């Protein structure tokens, strides 16, 4: 498997926090097998070994149904792996926890809560001191560019704005790890591009470790330090690409030859015959 060897460390990637940053997340031969209705076992995710550095931005691309969402849900503690384990700061992830923030493809806002109340939802659940949470929520709403919309209801917002609320909510409890499950998949391509620029800004300001699931190769190259390419089901990592584009990244880089070469290489991995590249 490709994962083991090339996934060793980021080291050479110029990055605000990484460099020789310690490892934050370790995936130790993590696998997921479902038992289908007729009793046969179905491999969703083949054993995956991978480390994610503190402050690193990792993107996972793969065809739909390749198990990338399952992988993310396992990191989030929403699904237990059937083999192997995932460590966060050296300790196994056994369930959901407040130092992991997750943004789903659908923003999943509560329509009866205002923008600010939606952002504050994790604090309501965690019973953290509301006054400090409230100040933090205001900060985050500002960070995601929704100042002035605090008291609006989700139905009054566009899809892109709703997803900004979802991001602010995921950041409320200051998680060390931010998981993004195709967060902009439902948006039109122009809004998506704008949201990607925003996401980079948020990332550079909040200095979180980010794992992004996407089926958009350009999005992955534009955002990430490293791009993991997963194969179709059963999911496994076929290759890891280190993105050498300098930071801060700008939209103009998307047209550069280097960008084109990287996305071409990833595309080649995705469409390569099974088992051909390791």
């Amino acid at each position, binding site marked *: 498997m490709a994962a083991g060897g090339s996934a060793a460390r980021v080291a050479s990637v110029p990055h605000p926090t990484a460099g020789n940053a310690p490892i934050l997340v370790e995936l130790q031969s993590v696998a997921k097998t479902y038992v289908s209705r007729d009793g046969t076992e179905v491999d969703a995710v083949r054993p995956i070994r991978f480390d994610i550095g503190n402050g690193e931005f990792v993107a996972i691309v793969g065809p739909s149904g390749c198990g990338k969402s399952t992988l993310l849900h396992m990191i*989030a*503690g*929403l699904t237990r792996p059937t083999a192997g384990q995932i460590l966060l700061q050296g300790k196994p992830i056994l*369930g*959901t*926890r*407040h130092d992991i923030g*997750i943004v*789903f493809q*659908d923003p*999943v806002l*509560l*329509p*009866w809560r205002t923008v600010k109340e939606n952002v504050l*939802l*994790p604090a*309501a*659940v*965690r019973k953290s001191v509301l006054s400090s949470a409230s100040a933090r929520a205001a900060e985050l709403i500002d960070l995601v*560019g*929704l100042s002035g919309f605090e008291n609006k*209801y*989700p*139905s*009054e*917002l*566009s*899809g*892109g*704005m*709703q997803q900004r609320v979802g991001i602010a909510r995921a950041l409320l409890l200051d998680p060390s790890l931010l998981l993004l499950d195709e967060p902009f998949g*439902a*948006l*039109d391509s122009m*809004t998506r591009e704008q949201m990607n620029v*925003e996401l980079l800004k948020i990332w550079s300001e909040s200095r979180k470790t980010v794992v992004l699931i996407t089926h958009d190769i350009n999005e992955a190259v534009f955002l990430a330090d490293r791009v993991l390419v997963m194969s179709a089901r059963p999911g496994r990592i076929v290759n890891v690409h280190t993105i050498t584009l300098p930071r801060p990244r700008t939209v103009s880089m998307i047209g550069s030859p280097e960008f084109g070469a990287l996305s071409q290489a990833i595309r080649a991995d995705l469409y390569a015959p099974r088992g051909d590249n390791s």
Partner: protein
Amino acid sequence: MSDITEGVAKPRPAPTPSNMGLWLDRLLVPVSVVAMVIFWEYSVTAFKVPEYLVPPPSAVFRSLSNMWNSGLLLTHGVITLIEAALGFVIAFVFSTILAICIAESRLFERLIYPYLAALQSMPKVAIAPLVMIWFGMGIESKIVLSALLSFFPMLVNAVEGLKSVDDKRARLFRSLGASRFQTLRLLKIPNALPFLLVGIELGTIYAMLGAIVAEFVGASQGLGAYLLSMNFQMDAAGSFALLAVLALYGILMQFALRAVRNRFLFWSRSNNHSQGA
């Protein structure tokens, strides 16, 4: 960031018909009601329908004003309203608690379901005579029947609302590490509110029905007893007047609940996953 307001979904203005269309729309119902009353008045006189069968609207109105002036309408009306209101409140409290137990515990649901199914499939009006024996001819029996009748529609809607939580929202709460109680308080109950309101709407109607039926079976006071005495006197105009009062109660309730919905549950009308403007 500069064009952020561009994506804001603006509140959709109501479809604006032409000026004449708007007037027609507003006047349609009042005009038809007035026309109906006039038609009724004249056809009853023209076809010489005896007043003890179908009274003309003018007689109904006269009867209504007599009832009001004598103070009888208010005394009987208040008693029935109290019975229905108490029955409703009892049914609301019990149905909501039971609904939460059913929605939260599969075991409890399986345990209680056969009894509920049996009770619900029984015409509850048929218990009215028994209720009289158990609770007497006073106000208690009216409250009990009123509660019994309004209980089921409220229970069914509350259970439906509590169980209809979107999978994605449930997963969000799981990812936040929410406890069962927190999920109930912050997700399931708010989510159930629009359903609860539908149950309440039915409940207010059934509570009134229960009180009236119980008064039919045995009572000296209340609108049901009053209506029965009108019937014995062959006073059709009086009966019609009381029926109009009961209809008015239903209409007022509906308006009040619609106001509550618009004020507090405005979010449930627009769909939950609105994407873009």
